[in-house]
């Protein structure tokens, strides 16, 4: 058998090249490079303070990296250098093609809007007009994330943490973004709620073919959701590969420690 030559690939959805960010003397993340393909789910794990949230904020345009470049393949413009976009352009891109799920639902929801209003805001912002359509689409999504329709007109502050997190997911996925950034989407929830949220996410991401970058400290979460995994320690990526490879046959001492210190992922 003779292997075929490597074929040329379509451009990745997002490529991250040499991104570093420090806070004064404090290292955030250093020299990170990777790319994500359409529909691919990438997990990022690592100990507390290893730079995961810093990296996620940098690549989702919320934090300016000190060095490095970010190229994103826009739907109708093709590959663009995100850092060279103007602020309004970047915001428009984020609104129309990205979703950002924050660890704390309060950071990602409008606490003064109703649940339906939270879900309907983005479709409205990118040009949907007809009130009836928006409302029925919003309700459709509330159903998908298992929020009772009788709560459509309630404000999220009357919701439990798990419901708020599900609402945040609906708010982000309603416009079918091409790329979703999630920081600890199951953090702070009790175990049974986590499990529910996880298979909800798993179903939605696979069904809609959305690419996602998920930061978490929970190896079971990446096992279930991520195709590929990066392990961070002290601001750097120390091991990466297919999720099951990295978890079942870890090579780096830190990854081995991480994997052996949980019961089973």
């Amino acid at each position, binding site marked *: *058998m003779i292997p075929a030559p490597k074929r040329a690939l379509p451009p990745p959805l997002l490529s991250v090249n040499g991104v570093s960010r420090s806070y004064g003397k404090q290292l955030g993340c250093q020299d990170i490079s990777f790319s994500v393909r359409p529909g691919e789910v990438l997990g990022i794990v690592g100990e507390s303070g290893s730079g995961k949230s810093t990296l996620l904020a940098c690549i989702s345009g919320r934090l300016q990296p000190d060095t490095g470049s970010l190229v994103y393949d826009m739907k109708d413009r093709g590959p663009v250098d995100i850092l060279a976009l103007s602020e309004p352009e970047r915001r428009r891109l984020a609104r129309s093609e990205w979703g950002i799920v924050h660890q704390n639902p309060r950071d990602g929801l409008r606490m003064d809007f109703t649940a339906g209003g939270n879900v309907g805001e983005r479709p409205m912002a990118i040009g949907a007009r007809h009130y009836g359509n928006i409302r029925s689409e919003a309700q459709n999504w509330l159903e998908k994330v298992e929020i009772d329709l009788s709560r459509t007109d309630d404000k999220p502050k009357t919701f439990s943490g798990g419901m708020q997190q599900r609402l945040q997911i609906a708010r982000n996925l309603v416009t079918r973004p091409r790329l979703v950034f999630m920081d600890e989407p199951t953090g702070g929830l009790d175990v049974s709620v986590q499990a529910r949220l996880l298979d909800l996410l798993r179903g939605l991401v696979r069904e809609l073919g959305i690419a996602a970058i998920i930061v978490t400290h929970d190896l079971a979460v990446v096992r279930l959701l991520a195709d*590929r995994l990066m392990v961070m320690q002290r601001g750097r990526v120390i091991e990466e590969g297919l999720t099951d490879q990295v978890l079942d046959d870890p090579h780096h001492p830190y990854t081995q420690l991480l994997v*052996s210190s949980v019961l089973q992922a």
Partner: protein
Amino acid sequence: MSIRLHAEGLSKTFTLHTQGGTRLPVFRDIDLAVRGGECVCLHGPSGAGKSTLLRSLYANYKPDAGRILVEHGGKIIDLLAAEPWEVVEIRKRSIGYVSQFLRVIPRISTLDVVAEPAIFTGAAREAAANAAANLLTRLRIPERLWSLAPATFSGGEQQRVNIARGLMVHYPILLLDEPTASLDAANRRMVIELIQEAKSRGTAVVGIFHDEEVRNAVGDRLFEVGKSIDVRSAPHAEKEKSAHVGASVE
């Protein structure tokens, strides 16, 4: 039939950093070619490295050296040199792997667990569900269990669900790690039948079967995987001459 899977020069040593950097050589310089329609049984004592080899053929473990050439989408690809997304694609369509134990996905029904691999390849939901129901019936999983998540099932039931999931897609290459270990005679015979059907479709099968009845029924030849090696040599000072793998035995 032509060769569907060809492992060349495969070597694997684990380095256990959490245990003082102990090096654990498992196998070295393995050469294994499997034709379509053929079933090769990995053979050797416990700890010899059978599962390690099988997992390596699925790129679940990363061998230190060698190539694993597989046919995928009409082309020959080296699984060990492939990009992660490519491995995901190859696993979706070209290589199936049935692990020894089912990895339960919380809250997903048995029927969906089984149908899922076909849906991932783009099959229609309805057709996939029908095929899944058919496999579950043949493997004697009572219909009242289909809507439940398999988390609470018995060991043998979980294993049969796992086999059904692994056989949903007609992969050209199929890897089986002790698929009959906790099954009774009737279920064992059904698994034999299913493996024979896969072979007659031209699937290249590599399996680990402790059960001699199964081995005799489906196996075309044995492939001896090392002897149990206990060469726990210190870091940088390993001697691994016993990490050999014999040629195929008839």
